[in-house]
């Protein structure tokens, strides 16, 4: 970043060093900002989970506060499979959004017959360009992402965060 960009001559000086939630690339994961926060707590414990309806048995993804099939609020947390197969993938060399290093590898996964989750698009990490092939097996992996500040009862607390991706099975 140039000296000019760092100065207060340009830009919005009022926002210098200010966290702008609107521009955040990650979810607000803490209980103050969503009702599906157990998903993120489970990520911290290495578990890939979602909500299952106790009334009709439907397993939704992403997790929800009502069942999208029957609108029941009676849900429970269940674990999802942590291994899947790559159907197709793409390696983006240029044009990935800022914050995502190149090559950005995204794969379309299949979880197989009878799995509660059929397909998912995921980011593949811990993988070199050209390493992953169609048909390869990948596994669930979590990683820390930057925390954000939040005002809770006049105090500013720091909300730690985690996210997930998949990686090649070696």
């Amino acid at each position, binding site marked *: 970043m140039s000296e000019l960009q760092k100065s207060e001559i340009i830009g919005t000086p009022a926002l210098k060093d200010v966290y702008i939630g*609107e*521009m955040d*690339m*990650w*979810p607000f994961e803490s209980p103050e900002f969503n009702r599906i926060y157990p998903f993120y707590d489970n990520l911290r414990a290495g578990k890939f989970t979602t909500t299952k309806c106790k009334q009709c048995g439907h397993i939704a*993804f*992403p997790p929800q506060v009502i069942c999208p099939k029957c609108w029941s609020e009676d849900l429970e947390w269940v674990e999802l499979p942590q291994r899947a197969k790559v*159907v*197709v*993938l*793409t*390696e*983006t*060399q*240029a*044009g*990935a*959004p*800022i*914050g*995502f290093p190149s090559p*950005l590898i*995204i794969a*379309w996964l299949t979880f197989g017959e009878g799995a509660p*989750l*059929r*397909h*998912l*698009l*995921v*980011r593949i990490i811990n993988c070199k360009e050209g390493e992953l092939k169609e048909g390869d097996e990948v596994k669930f992996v979590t990683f820390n992402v930057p925390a954000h500040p939040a005002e809770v009862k006049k105090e500013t607390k720091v909300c730690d965060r985690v*996210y997930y*991706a998949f990686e090649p099975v070696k």
Partner: protein
Amino acid sequence: MAQKKNAVIVGGGTSKFGVRQAHLLDMVQEAAVACQKDVPGLKHKDVDGLIIATTMAGRHSSALNTAPLVVHRLGLSPTSICIRLDTLCAGSNSAIIVAKGLIESGIAEVVLVTGGEKVYMPQRWETNYTQLAVNDHDWDSAMGLGVPPPFFAMIARMHMKRYGTTKEQMAHVSVTNYNYGTDSPNAHFGGRTLTIKEALEARIIADPFGLYDCCPLSDGASAVVIASEERAKEMSDRPLVYVRGTGQHATHSMSAGWPGETLAEWPHLKKAGEVAFKNAQLTPKDIDVAQTHDCFSISEVIELEELGFCQKGEGGPFVASGATKIDGAIPTNTDGGLLVYGHPFGASGARQSLEICKQLQGRAIHQVKDARFGLAHNLSGTCAQHTVVIYGREPVE
């Protein structure tokens, strides 16, 4: 009960599409003027409804409640409807569906449907970054899925794998659309030409896509007049073009909800098309000219299949055979489509519908002979929603 009114598209216009040195509201004004030049009988006081379709006007352009801004800049004073509408890439065709309902029910008489985007910000990174917020932000977007090329590249690979579609067949989509769009004065890439060789040798954006397989992101705005049949006759002597039937189908917001067997099947588009054809009391065979959402070359291939213009899986050979050329089975994207005219999300639907309007009035630049029925289609986001509007020279009985 009073007889149902018919809604017609009278005419319209677009601003210049491209990387513009202009504010969103500047471009909406340009589109409105182009619309009035196209429909000289349109008077300010006649416009009783205004819809502005835009997606990025909140973060880009700092214009969250956009409709009053447009009303003020255009000097309008709507009394029936004054709203902003956002269905991303389908915004202004969605607005046409709304306007049709309002006119047929008697709530509105003359609705100015506008759409526009200011995509390019003072620094380019912000354009790609904002797209994280227009997909399912906390899920697919957090995987880095913001800009569309990687997703549609996977769709293309899947179609190639399942149906044997080739890069050369996809290049025919781009070349055909360049042959049309080069003559559109307001097109992002107006005046440019393309050969199959150039398309195949272009730099790779996301394998298998080269540069010309991908539409540009564009700044721009469009405006069309949707009016009751009676008011349209007062405004213009041109043949009436009726909004015959519409369909819009959404099934999911992120990849876990994808409705197809694989990425190469788009059953949600098939459904949207079936609904629109039923409402229009037509079949794909009746359609003389189409504007389908060619955000990527493969998109047009799959859309021709799912809309029923060719068999499923045969879209590749179909486009390579010249079927979408002016004398082909279904001339498609006759103004250049998204690939050449450009793609300011909220503005694209009205731009397509305007081209169908001109075709059915017999005054398009690349005119399809005796065109009586036309279709416009948009997909939105990561192919999450499909919008189909069918027009005709006669109303539905």
